[in-house]
């Protein structure tokens, strides 16, 4: 590679995340050799021991591309988001949590106090007779120990810093990542700043080959285990709520191929601001009953509507969180 253009500097970071996004990067398997041929991985906590201090000491805009996964839930996440923004030419919100707030974002239906009470005293597996709770600072004889400050709010990356691109998914499809990476390496013209990349523009239904008819009026909703899925017709027509109609295409409708309704991890398609609200509005429209009591009865079958419709998108939605 001598004499060729300098290698790209690549970073991957996890904030409030489960680790799945980092694993999806690892899932490039032997293609990793192609990646490292074209790029130096300068920071990737799951894979190498590089300290935050090392990043802090880098010159600004030293990193070409940072894939930032996970939501911003505490002061450490926020510090790293701001730091990596400063050090990166291109900051990519990678995966649902970074893109929309994701599963950790569902914590916005609770307050910090409620979460701590549940986790540190009430949960079935908690044994905490001294009622020890995490504190941001704690004095021991060796000095002061500190923990990141836990916020009330979970935020998406773009609610904290300016983001150049979004790669959706929980986790994003590794193939899509490779396409994006190849495009960047090849010097192809990049889409306008703020774009969702590594995905389509329409919804899952555009891809999905299940049979769709006009017969979408619903008298009863079912959870997937309550029906014998025929494997052929649209889930909505079988009374199973599928987030596909309000979810961006690009994953290859993998859940639906596996006979499970779409959960919505790819986020809203172009033009949709709040996929949860859109889907609720849609569901309310197709209920095939007229009387208020009947409509209520039909809706009772929708278990945990907040978690169903806002599974990945609560922090960026119109309602954003529970009122404090």
């Amino acid at each position, binding site marked *: 590679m001598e004499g060729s253009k300098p290698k790209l500097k690549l970073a991957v970071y996890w904030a409030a995340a489960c680790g799945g996004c980092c694993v999806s990067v690892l899932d490039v398997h032997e293609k990793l050799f192609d990646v490292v041929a074209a790029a130096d991985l300068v920071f990737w906590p799951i894979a190498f021991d590089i300290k935050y201090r090392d990043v802090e000491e880098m010159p600004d805009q030293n990193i070409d591309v940072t894939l930032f996964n996970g939501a911003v839930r505490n002061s450490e996440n926020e510090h790293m988001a701001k730091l990596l923004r400063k050090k990166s030419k291109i900051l990519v919100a990678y995966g649902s949590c970074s893109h929309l707030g994701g599963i950790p974002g569902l914590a916005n239906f609770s307050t910090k106090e409620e979460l701590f009470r549940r986790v540190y005293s009430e949960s079935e597996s908690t044994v905490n007779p001294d009622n020890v709770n995490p504190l941001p600072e704690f004095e021991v004889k060796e000095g002061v120990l500190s923990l990141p400050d836990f916020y009330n709010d979970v935020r998406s990356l773009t609610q904290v810093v300016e983001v150049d691109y979004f790669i959706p998914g929980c986790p994003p499809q590794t193939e899509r990542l490779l396409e994006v990476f190849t495009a960047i390496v090849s010097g192809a013209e990049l889409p306008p700043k703020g774009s969702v990349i590594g995905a389509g*523009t*329409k*919804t*899952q*239904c*555009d891809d999905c080959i299940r049979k*769709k*008819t*006009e*017969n*979408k*009026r619903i008298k009863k909703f079912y959870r997937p285990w309550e029906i014998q899925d025929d494997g052929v017709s*649209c889930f*909505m027509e079988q009374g199973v709520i599928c987030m*596909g*109609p*309000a979810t961006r*295409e690009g994953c290859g409708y993998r859940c639906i191929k596996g006979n499970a309704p779409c959960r919505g991890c790819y986020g809203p*398609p*172009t*033009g*949709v*601001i709040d*996929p949860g609200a*859109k*889907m609720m*509005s*849609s569901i*309310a*429209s*197709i209920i095939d009953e007229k009387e208020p009591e009947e409509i209520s009865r039909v809706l009772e079958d929708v278990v945990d509507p907040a978690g169903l419709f806002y599974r990945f998108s609560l922090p960026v939605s119109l309602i954003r969180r529970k009122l404090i």
Partner: protein
Amino acid sequence: MKNCRIGVYVCMCGTNIAKIVDVEAVVKFVSELPNVVLAKTYKYMCSNPGQEMIVQDIKDNQLNRVVVAACSPNMHERTFRNALRAAGLNQYLLEMANIREQCSWVHTDIKEATEKARALVYAAICRVELHEELESMSVDMCPNVLVIGGGIAGMTAALEIADAGNNVYLVEKNDHLGGNLARVDLTAPYLYSARDLLTEKITRTNNNKKLHIYLQSKVTNLTGYIGNFKATINSLNGKPPEKNKPAEVEIGNVVVCTGYKEFDASRIVHYGYGKLPNVITSFELEKMIRAGRIVTKEGKIPRHVAIIHCVGSRSQEFHTYCSRVCCMTALKYAHEIKSANPECYISDVYIDMHAFGKGHEDFYCRSSEAKTLFLMYEKGDRPVIHKATSKDNCEMLIEVNEKLSGEVIEIPADLVILMVGMEAREDSHEVARIVNISQDKEGWFIESHPKLEPVATTTDGIFIAGTCVAPKDIPDSVAQARAAAARILARIAKEKIEVDALYSEVNENLCSGCRLCNQLCPYSAIEFLEDKKQSHIISALCKGCGVCVAACPSSAINGRHFTDQQVLAQVDGLFVIP
């Protein structure tokens, strides 16, 4: 938005708004907002000088957006849209903030009302910045008209329109014309014969070449939109379907005159209707009068007749409204019974005597001179009818807690006439569904505006007249029928109709063909294009109701003039007022 030049006009509405909202403070606040070029108050913005001021300002200051903070857009949106047009500006670049009905009329605190008015106006400004120029469509007006119901209202409307040279399809479910009026003998207060009134109408209806009568038939389907409806008329004559092909007619407008049915008196158990043979309804008496003999079930001439008012009307259990015609009809019965049998004693048992119409009060005075005994009872404290014993020398005894004397009075009766009120027909909901109009909680059809649009409905091209709207007497029914006919004739004369530009459209770049919207359109405007695997809206059929916009999970359907961005900007404006 760049290059927005907004004019804001805050109406005082005399003192209607200015009394509670500090309009000057609102003007001062908006004047300082970016993009607002000028802001003014005026006594009556809807007046000619008010409109002219807006037109002049648009021209002088190159305004390209206008916000009028005044009354409901239902009231004056059209007025101000016309002002924009007159100034050469697209009419849809207007937004109204309702600071009267939604503000000054519902608040008493000046400070709070002014704060709310500021928020409403600011929200309107945020919205109007995103307004787009839209063009209305013009469609042909089919001159044929469908009239549903062959009573006095239906025949009047049909004749009026047919006499002007247009084809009218008159559909009546009975085997004869005339409706409820055909069941009546004389009419109050002038005692004209109903038969005379009707015969003339029926003869003219039958002889008019432009009038196509479908007896024993009903309208089973209506599709299309104003100017271009298609109706299916099915026969009810019971012949096998192969001999009974439904008729398909093309029409531009519809008049619904389906009338009323009388209250079922057996629902009021203690009047004994259906059990006591000589307790009859007003319509049963009419039948006797038309046959020429007022007698009891036993064939005897009654010496004592009691007339009980408000049967089913003005009651919490049945209908809370007044049926309007029964008081005068009851007086008419007193006349008719007296003239048939001068020896007869008549008691008139009422709650209040409603003699509101022309000639009605005089009629009441004449009746009270004709030795009718009037007994007043309290609403909810109904008279009780007992069977009399043999020594009472009459059939029944009626116990009335008489309100004026404060005494319980027992009156004899051989014949009791129950003045049954009017109620909506049992099939009115079916009619409402077919022609796509609304009903109130009692089942009456709802007018577009109770005062200013009494015969129009919220579905363009569908008119209502007569007692299917609410109880009313013959002159009012006829007036409404003629009003509906006049509205329709005016439209036919124009030959074309402008259809509002507020229709919805599918963005082909966004529709993924999930088909969630396909069965929702009340106007059948949505089709699915199999080749493109996308839904499509036929704009001429769309009324812009927004059902599909709300149902579309991917924002592929855009409601023109009600886009997500416009609505959300307005909502944001309400909450983040500077």
